[in-house]
């Protein structure tokens, strides 16, 4: 299957690397780990992993993954999705998967564009950016995927960029361990389809952009406590990275099993 289909400078390979390292660190049984994906560049990842994989239809990976997990809870179910796949065409499945709180881990590769089709406007494309379908600049507001996951109630939400390998690996591991819906958004460069139209043609430029346009949640909290309002407002314009939510709440498979016990008791 090698070489991969990924372009030079693409972040998907690194993210696949982080996920596999997290799996190795947790000593997950690869025979019991299922990789599910939708359609798009990042959704091709399962094809490069020697394990069970379900490369599904555009936007629906979480719904397919839900069927797998509820039917065989001993399986670790990891979903690879992209920004268009997850919050464009698949937005409804995303929020309902979170609402149900089924124990799956969703790795969303956010490159701000539809890369596979050559770089069109995505729900995450920053305002003012240029894509093939916004040749005069994007006037729409972008979705903040991690924030959406947080307010929809996902018990574990983290966001990192490909420049944060150690933090990413740790978060992916925590997400897999989390008994419930875990969401990890990965900011990932796409110099070929997005960068070249937005003065980020060299992948190094996009890395710099991440450095200048992201802020760690802890750093923001410190700023909020210690700084002037103008400085805080400026900082809040940046993309917040870090572990954004880590809470406990009843998980779907466990709740279903409790329901089955209850029904079995009444039937006796």
């Amino acid at each position, binding site marked *: *299957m090698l070489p991969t289909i990924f372009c030079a400078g693409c972040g998907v390979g690194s993210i696949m690397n982080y996920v596999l390292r997290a799996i190795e660190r947790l000593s997950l049984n690869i025979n019991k780990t299922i990789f599910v994906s939708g359609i798009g560049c990042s959704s091709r990842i*399962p094809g490069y992993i020697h394990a069970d994989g379900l490369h599904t239809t555009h936007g629906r990976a979480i*719904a*397919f993954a*839900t*069927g*797998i997990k509820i039917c065989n809870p001993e399986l670790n179910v990891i979903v690879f999705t992209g920004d268009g796949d997850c919050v464009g065409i698949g937005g*409804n499945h995303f929020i*309902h998967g979170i609402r149900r709180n089924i124990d799956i881990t969703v790795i969303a590769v956010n490159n701000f564009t539809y890369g596979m089709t050559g770089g069109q406007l995505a729900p995450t494309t920053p305002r003012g950016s240029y894509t093939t379908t916004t040749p005069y600049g994007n006037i729409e507001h972008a979705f903040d995927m991690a924030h959406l996951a947080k307010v929809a109630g996902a018990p574990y939400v983290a966001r990192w960029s490909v420049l944060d390998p150690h933090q990413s690996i740790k978060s992916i591991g925590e997400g897999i361990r989390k008994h419930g819906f875990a969401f990890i958004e990965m900011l990932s460069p796409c110099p070929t389809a997005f960068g070249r139209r937005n003065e980020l043609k060299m992948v190094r430029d996009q890395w710099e952009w991440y450095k200048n346009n992201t802020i760690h949640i802890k750093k923001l909290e410190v700023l909020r406590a210690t700084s002037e309002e103008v400085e805080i407002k400026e900082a809040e314009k940046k993309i917040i990275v870090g572990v954004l939510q880590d809470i406990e709440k009843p998980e779907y498979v466990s709740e279903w099993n409790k329901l089955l016990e209850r029904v079995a008791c009444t039937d006796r």
Partner: protein
Amino acid sequence: MKVIGEKVQFVSGDDAVCYGALLAGCTFFAGYPITPATEIAEGMARLLPKIGGIYMQMEDEISSLAACIGASWTGRKCLTATSGPGFSLMQENIGYACMTETPLVIVNVMRSGPSTGQPTLAAQGDIMQARFGTHGDHEIIALYPNSVQESLDLAIQAFNLSEKYRVPVILLLDAEIAHMREKLVIPDDFLIINRVLVTIDTKEYHPFRTGFTHPGSKVPEFAPFGSGYHTYVTGLTHEEHGFPSTTDPHAHDRLVRRLSEKILDDEEALSYLETRFCEDAETFLITYGITSRTALAAVKNARQKEKKVGYVRLKTIWPFPKKTLQHILHDAHDVIVAEMNLGQLIMPVREIFGGARNITKVGGEIFLPEEMERVM
């Protein structure tokens, strides 16, 4: 099965589908409420937990079928039920199930369309959608009962065929049968077919290789997720090893032809029809579903008037029972297809009998016998 209850019951077609699914071994249902199929979701929500199964109410029909496909890859038998608008939403994933050879059963309790149409009234308007709704070349199996009893029987058969051929099977149901209550006898003895599980060593395993341990078979063996076989499943054109091959014309030709042939090779075995008064018939009235109940009365009346009319009822709509019908209609003088749409099944019938006539009715009311007798 204890949860089904009494051996003889007075229930609806929707109830009978639930019972049939359970008897066939279905343990997973995912669906979304829609008239006139909601009672199937309600029945499965009530019954499945009692046998340790799983009922899931999804956010729409797209995810309902998606969850069923995911569930089927863990080895379970899965059901979803819907009506026109939901069936339209399912089309992409029906194609995915065809391409990935995922067994499951979809019930489409039809209503008048297009669009929201008449949600509570009967129509037979999805004959062609069942066949051609999803994009690309493919074959499909669609069965069509005409009674509450047969809703149970064909639900079991739908599961058996989906398992045997590893295809999505569509059970087309009329709203009139879904909501009508009739006597139902729970069968004691019936055939159950399960998908053929992989037996070869993991090293020799290719997820979509056929004819290796079962020479001549065009259906691959199944390795459920988590069994250690490392199965990669994609809706992209793929080789036997399961990985994409999107630019090789031969790979696509090979795959899509096999997917069609595994069904078409068995067309005659899959042709379930009921014929009555056909031995000396000159005119043949072809119907299916609820329309056939009117047709039988009309044919009996015509016979009393000494008209040589035969009754042909299709239980298999797809694959179209071409060879079997050709045989039945060999000496026909006149062929009439009556259906509750503006002319759908007439199309394949005219391939066999060019001059076949079509009487059609839409609006939600079923045919009256005299409406059929008038044209015979």
